[in-house]
């Protein structure tokens, strides 16, 4: 009994140790986004609160904390308040299966990728309920758009995941990364290049980020599904969006860029030089690269039109993924080197079955 409680407390501490740095990362991601977009547009960005504006996220947090929570009379008040929590929970809970380095994972489940796929699709409920419960035209429009867009891109994303499964032969995220051992050329981004692109485009669309942010579309439907939200309820949606951005970037790094593996593996001199770098640092570096790309995309591209988004999702991305799954099936069955030789396919097979 005491032993069980001890395990429970130990797990809780580990969960908090993941959540707190994540929330700090979310806070500073908002700062970084404003700073980077500022520099891209020839501005300075936030620089008043603290040195270089570094205290800005906390100032924002306390400002939002002391703002009035407005619950419109016409809304369904309980659903209205539940929606932000529903948006945040999947964005946080998905981190339970992300391996940060070899062996450094909260719950090493064999259905890791399936869990990620399942829980990341739950986020759409928060948005849909928010839009409906607000009882406002803009909110409803934003929620409908967002839901249709998210589920459309989820298909392409699901097929991209299937490609990763075919190449690695396991759903366990740790084994997927271990399967990419042997240097930068063995990472899945080369044999799965089209799926990598499809995954990334879908990830941008899934998180409702520019240039696919018609769900918010400031210039047409003011703020979409969270137009009626204020203060902390709005902040929760914001946190969920940014936590999701970090999540999709981390998944991209794990599935296609070798996760925590060093890019200098099997390169004579460099391998020894960078030997001291912990795996976690590589993962963080790769994730940050993707996050920078997300911000860069937002600063560069104008917003897509809604019919263009749907066309891209259904008529471009889905056919590409289906085609590449067939190609991939052929290359795996004929053991195309250097990625799908008998020895390489056996790497994860042993760990998975054994």
């Amino acid at each position: 009994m005491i032993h069980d409680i001890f395990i429970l407390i130990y797990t809780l501490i580990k969960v908090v140790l993941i959540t707190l740095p994540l929330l700090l990362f979310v806070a500073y991601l908002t700062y970084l986004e404003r700073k980077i977009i500022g520099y891209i547009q020839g501005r300075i960005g936030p620089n008043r609160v603290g040195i270089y504006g570094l205290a800005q996220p906390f100032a924002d947090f306390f400002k939002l904390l002391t703002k009035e929570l407005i619950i419109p009379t016409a809304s369904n008040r309980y659903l209205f308040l539940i929606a932000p929590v529903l948006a945040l929970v999947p964005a946080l809970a998905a981190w339970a299966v992300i391996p940060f380095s070899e062996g450094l994972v909260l719950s090493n489940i064999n259905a890791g990728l399936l869990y990620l796929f399942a829980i990341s699709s739950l986020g759409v409920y928060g948005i849909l309920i928010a839009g409906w419960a607000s009882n406002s035209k803009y909110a409803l429009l934003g929620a409908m758009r967002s839901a249709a867009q998210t589920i459309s891109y989820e298909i392409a994303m699901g097929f991209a995941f299937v490609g990763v499964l075919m190449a690695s032969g396991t759903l366990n995220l740790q084994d997927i990364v271990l399967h990419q051992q042997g240097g930068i050329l063995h990472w899945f981004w080369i044999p799965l290049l089209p799926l990598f692109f499809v995954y990334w485009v879908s990830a941008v669309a899934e998180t409702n980020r520019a240039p696919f942010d018609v769900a918010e579309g400031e210039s047409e439907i003011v703020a979409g599904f969270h137009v009626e939200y204020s203060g902390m309820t709005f902040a929760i949606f914001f946190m969920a969006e940014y936590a999701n951005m970090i999540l999709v970037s981390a998944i991209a790094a794990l599935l296609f860029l070798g996760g925590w593996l060093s890019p200098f593996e099997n390169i004579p001199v460099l391998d020894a030089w960078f030997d001291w770098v912990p795996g976690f640092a590589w993962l963080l570096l790769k994730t940050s690269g993707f996050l920078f790309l997300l911000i860069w995309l937002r600063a560069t591209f104008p917003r897509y039109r809604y019919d263009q988004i749907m066309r891209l999702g259904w008529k471009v991305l889905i056919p590409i993924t289906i085609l590449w799954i067939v190609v991939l099936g052929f290359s795996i069955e004929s053991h195309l080197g250097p990625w799908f030789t008998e020895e390489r396919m056996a790497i994860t097979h042993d760990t998975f079955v054994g």
Partner: protein
Amino acid sequence: MLGQYLPILIFILLGIVMGVLPILGGWILGPKKPNKEKLAAYECGFPAFEDARLPFDVRYYLVAILFIIFDLETAFFVPWAVVLNDIGWFGFWAMMIFLGLLVIGFIYEWKKGALEWE
């Protein structure tokens, strides 16, 4: 092995706490001065003309239906993809027949204009 799922449950519970606590904090710390205009639905400054729950485009419904078909397809693909290396060419071709049927359906939808959003 099931014990591995306990941390996930704890994580979900903590996620709920993380969502509820700030809202409660905002409720306690924020001012509460509601008035009729403030609590009305936002509509560019006018009072709302009609109920916001308008009928919406049937294409959203169509997309949802198509999504279910393709999501199921993905669900069928997952176990196949995991054991692909073991089941050999026979398994590969079996799945290709299934995929072929779905592609025919996909082409039919496309030709019928179910994917048009003009």
